[in-house]
């Protein structure tokens, strides 16, 4: 038995060796023989009729190989970019699904919409030629905000989508909610905006495509979180390339956060173009290009009402949301503000009746899709904010009102009125743990200390739950998914006992090469160093849905666990033969097969050897080799949750909010590697704090220009914005995943925005402030204080 590093251990991450020594292999590191350079020419207008493109000057420019436009796509009769989810309204009418051509045809619908692809010998030549294109636009007024887009007379993006409404979606029992509201002792109301975000992964998107005439095969290297899905969507639905003739490779990818979990037009165009020019083509987005082409996140406008009885018990919750889809439907677009939002509105509470209406709206902005948390941070924000509003209006302590409504640990499994059934959880335990960890008891002392410096201090809570581990295929199918959502893993045991795992998830920062190796090490008793995890290549990995929605461990890890179980089962058969015992008498423990109650034993290595050198082997009943595969389709979502407590200090003179303390106690189920979980929580919390305090994608109404189109104007959270975080887990085990895991990739982002804003509102509540929209920038806070015309501390 080797160096087992199993479940619960915290080894350093295997992948960091190559990342930290500059040995990573990213798309832009790859060079192919004869490679050319491609650049996309993008619309500078938010909305315009595309009258035509004059390519002549560009084609004559030095080094230019080809210039492709929407007309060329049309001539070849290629498909548009498919949407992976088809939602319907209450009457069952399917959403409006206008075509999303891979290069614009007839019209451009957002700044950044792709108009042409220029291929030249070098990037400089391609850029120079791109500037020589004459593009004839008839500029139309743009509409960028959801409120404006649904108003009568608003600019219309598509002729057959009246009022720009893609779908008028609803969930829940409207009648029951209305009845409950009539009986309510108190109704809390809240209007809020969930600000639009831009993911900004460290590595910009990039792609290389190559066509080999000899084999008629295409290879696409792309910065993707789900290469098999790209192969399927692009091959089968856009370019008509048979699956066996298309290889998609997503090598090392420098962060995704959702931005890279869609099939993008750039991937289709470059693959198609590679065959036309008969040479490999590389495209690497600049940071600025990412701002106007990476899918954005969030962007809701919401009205919410919570009905309560006289004791502060929640009777019903009603939410009306306008959700921005941008100019076209992206891969998961319409699924995010509907299926991943409405079902989370129950939170950790026993609210018996919930109704949610979401109008999904087209605007002249970059398509909006999943961004870390995807729908669930938006739901959590609405719910956790209105709980605070209700508490303050009814004069009930914010912790107390939560306790009165929380689902007790004993009540699990708990069926909510909005589809989902929570299998396990202990929200009260997380709350209690967080109250202690955050030293809430002594908050008054700290608040007084701040006051003596002229600062306002506030405390904010967020007790939340999320749904992850996307997703039971049957359930997803009912909600409109057009694909399955299982995961697959192959465990290949080599003749010498080392293990290679081929898995369909994709590691782009999460530490899978470590976590998954720990699972194998634990289960097979092999050395941690003797396990390699292979992912991101459709020629090497059987199949997979990729990484998003905190699904990798929950769904992929489950497939891996099942595949290792199969290896053990086969190993037992081999051991039974070698040890001349009955299969039922063979035990597998700590890397050894033995006959129960005897000292007859075969090591895992010996069994692997026998499987590949089957001289003494039951060939009549058993195949040689030791390699097993499993597909796992989850039976339910998993429901991580927890309690986050933020503490802020506001400088009333400048409006600056400083996050002074942050505590998170989360229930993520079984923890495989506590260090990696802590890292995921840290990163997730920082992204949530980013949304709460700093980040905002701002468009100019009318022109559709993105005003926050660079890091100079789009404020990312930075290390010096953060205090040391106190992060702990308080886990209950998931009852339906093989290892009891729940996932931890998004919890930080989901719990934190509400905690931070609740703290800011608390800090200002003595001045009559009841809500602060995100991001709570100094300018916004100062203005709020001005408008309340309140005395601002003078020195």
């Amino acid at each position, binding site marked *: 038995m080797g160096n087992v590093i199993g479940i619960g251990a915290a080894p350093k991450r295997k992948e960091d060796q190559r990342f930290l020594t500059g040995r990573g292999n990213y798309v832009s590191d790859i060079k192919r023989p004869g490679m050319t350079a491609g650049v996309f020419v993008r619309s500078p207008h938010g909305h315009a009729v595309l009258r035509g493109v004059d390519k002549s000057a560009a084609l004559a420019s030095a080094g230019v190989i080809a210039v492709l436009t929407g007309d060329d796509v049309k001539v070849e009769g290629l498909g548009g970019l498919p949407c992976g989810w088809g939602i319907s309204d209450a009457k069952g009418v399917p959403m409006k699904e206008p075509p999303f051509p891979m290069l614009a045809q007839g019209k451009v619908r957002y700044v950044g919409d792709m108009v042409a692809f220029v291929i030249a010998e070098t990037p*400089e030549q391609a*850029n*120079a030629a791109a*500037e020589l294109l004459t593009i004839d636009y008839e500029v139309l007024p743009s509409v960028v905000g959801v409120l404006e887009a649904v108003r009568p007379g608003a600019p219309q993006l598509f002729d057959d989508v009246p009022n720009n409404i893609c779908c008028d979606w609803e969930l829940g029992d409207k009648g029951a909610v209305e009845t409950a509201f009539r009986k309510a002792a108190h109704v809390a109301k809240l209007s809020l905006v969930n600000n639009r975000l831009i993911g900004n992964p460290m590595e910009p998107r990039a792609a290389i495509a190559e066509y080999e005439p000899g084999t008629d095969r295409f290879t696409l290297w792309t910065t993707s979180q789900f290469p098999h899905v790209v192969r399927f969507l692009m091959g089968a639905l856009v370019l008509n390339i048979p699956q066996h003739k298309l290889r998609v490779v997503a090598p090392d990818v420098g962060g995704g956060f959702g931005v890279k979990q869609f099939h993008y037009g750039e991937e289709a165009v470059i693959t198609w173009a590679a065959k036309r020019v008969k040479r490999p083509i590389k495209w690497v987005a600049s940071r*600025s290009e990412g701002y106007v082409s990476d899918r954005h996140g969030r962007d809701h406008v919401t009205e919410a009402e919570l009905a309560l009885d006289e004791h502060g018990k929640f009777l019903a919750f009603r939410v009306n949301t306008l959700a921005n889809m941008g100019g076209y439907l992206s891969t998961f677009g319409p699924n995010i503000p509907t299926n991943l939002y409405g079902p989370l509105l129950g939170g950790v509470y026993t609210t018996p009746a919930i109704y949610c209406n979401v109008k999904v709206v087209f605007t002249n902005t970059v398509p909006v899709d999943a961004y870390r948390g995807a729908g669930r941070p938006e739901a959590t924000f609405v719910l956790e904010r209105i709980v605070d509003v209700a508490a303050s209006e009814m004069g009930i302590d914010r912790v107390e009102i939560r306790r009165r409504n929380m689902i007790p640990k004993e009540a699990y499994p708990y069926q909510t009125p909005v589809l989902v059934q929570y299998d396990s959880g202990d929200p009260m335990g997380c709350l209690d743990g967080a109250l202690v960890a955050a030293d809430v008891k002594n908050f008054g002392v700290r608040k007084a200390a701040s006051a003596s410096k002229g600062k306002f201090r506030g405390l904010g809570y967020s007790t939340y739950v999320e749904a992850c581990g996307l997703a039971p295929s049957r359930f997803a199918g009912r909600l409109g998914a057009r694909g399955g959502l299982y995961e697959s893993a192959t465990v290949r045991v080599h003749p010498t006992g080392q293990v290679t795992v081929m898995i369909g998830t994709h590691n782009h920062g999460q530490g899978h090469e470590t976590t998954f190796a720990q699972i194998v090490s634990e289960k097979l008793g092999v050395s941690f160093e003797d396990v390699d995890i292979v992912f991101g290549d459709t020629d090497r990995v059987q199949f997979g849905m990729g990484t998003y929605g905190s699904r990798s461990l929950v769904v992929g890890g489950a497939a891996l666990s099942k595949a290792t179980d199969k290896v053990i089962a086969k190993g037992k058969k081999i051991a039974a033969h070698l040890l001349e015992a009955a299969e039922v008498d063979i035990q597998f423990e700590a890397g050894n097969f033995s006959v129960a109650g005897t000292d007859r034993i075969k090591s895992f290595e010996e069994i692997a050897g026998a499987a590949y050198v089957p001289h003494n082997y039951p060939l009549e009943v058993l195949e040689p080799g030791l390699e097993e595969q499993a597909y796992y389709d989850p039976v339910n979502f998993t429901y991580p949750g927890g309690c986050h407590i933020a503490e802020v200090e506001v400088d009333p*003179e*400048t*409006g600056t909010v400083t996050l002074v303390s942050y505590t998170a106690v989360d229930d993520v189920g079984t923890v495989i590697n506590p260090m990696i979980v802590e890292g995921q929580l840290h990163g997730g919390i920082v992204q949530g704090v980013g949304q709460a305090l*700093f980040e*905002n994608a*701002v468009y100019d109404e009318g022109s559709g220009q993105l*005003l*926050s189109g660079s*890091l*100079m*104007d*789009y*404020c*990312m959270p930075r290390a010096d914005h953060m205090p040391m975080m106190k992060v702990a887990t308080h886990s209950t085990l998931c009852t339906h995943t093989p290892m009891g895991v729940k996932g931890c990739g998004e919890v930080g982002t989901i719990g934190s925005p509400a905690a931070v804003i609740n703290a800011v509102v608390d800090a200002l509540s003595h001045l009559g402030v009841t809500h602060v929209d995100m991001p709570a*920038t*100094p*300018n916004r806070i*100062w*203005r709020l204080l001005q408008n309340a015309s309140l005395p601002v501390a*003078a*020195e």
Partner: protein
Amino acid sequence: MKPFAYHQPDQIPDAAKLLTSIEDSKLVAGGMTLIPTLKQRLANPPALVDLSRLGNLKGITDDGATITIGAMTPHAVVAASKLVQAKIPGLAALASMIGDPAVRSRGTIGGSVANNDPAADYPAGVLGLGAAIVTSTREIAADKFFLGLFETALETGEIITAIRFPVPLRAGYTKFKAPASRYALVGVFVAKFADGVRVAVTGAGPGVFRVPPMEAALSENFDPSAIAAIKIDNDGLTSDIHAEADYRAHLVTVMAKRAVDAALS
């Protein structure tokens, strides 16, 4: 980036000659501002004239009543200079607040002053201290140098060689960082001399400017309370997605008070 010729002269007159003889050619110092504009293809100079080989443009000298900082001196050197820290601590503090360590190691005082970005920090220090901009051909008083948005009194072919700062009795700089860029949303430099006080504001408007009412009040009483009630007019101040003009105007008073505090401490 588009192709350009690259020159690295070692004499100032040679550099000046290149600049005047090659139309639209540009000086490059630290390149922290210029290179990004080239990469984004916003500027297309046919030639770059690199100042790094010119002698004597780097370094800080103590002239008694003044301190002279060579144009090619990087921000990090000014920030860490014992001399500047001792004689004009507010200026060392200002340099330490510019950008990040990489930018401070490459970016130069000459480049910053020549560029005159409306949100840059050095213009506030130069105007607030009433410095002289020494060029290849003359000396220009700060009050006559900054002409508004990216505009200066520099002529084509004129090269900044140094900035000469009078040593004040006290000086302080406070900067309210723009959230994303961390340039100055509003930065205020306050300097007290024997013959009066100067107050210079950057970030708030299209160019660095002085605030005479604050200067008068502080000359009477060099204390934050002296200017707490002085509000500057919103007119002409910048409004953008980060801050409207009235907020910037408010911040000028707050930052000026804090700059006085910093000067006193």
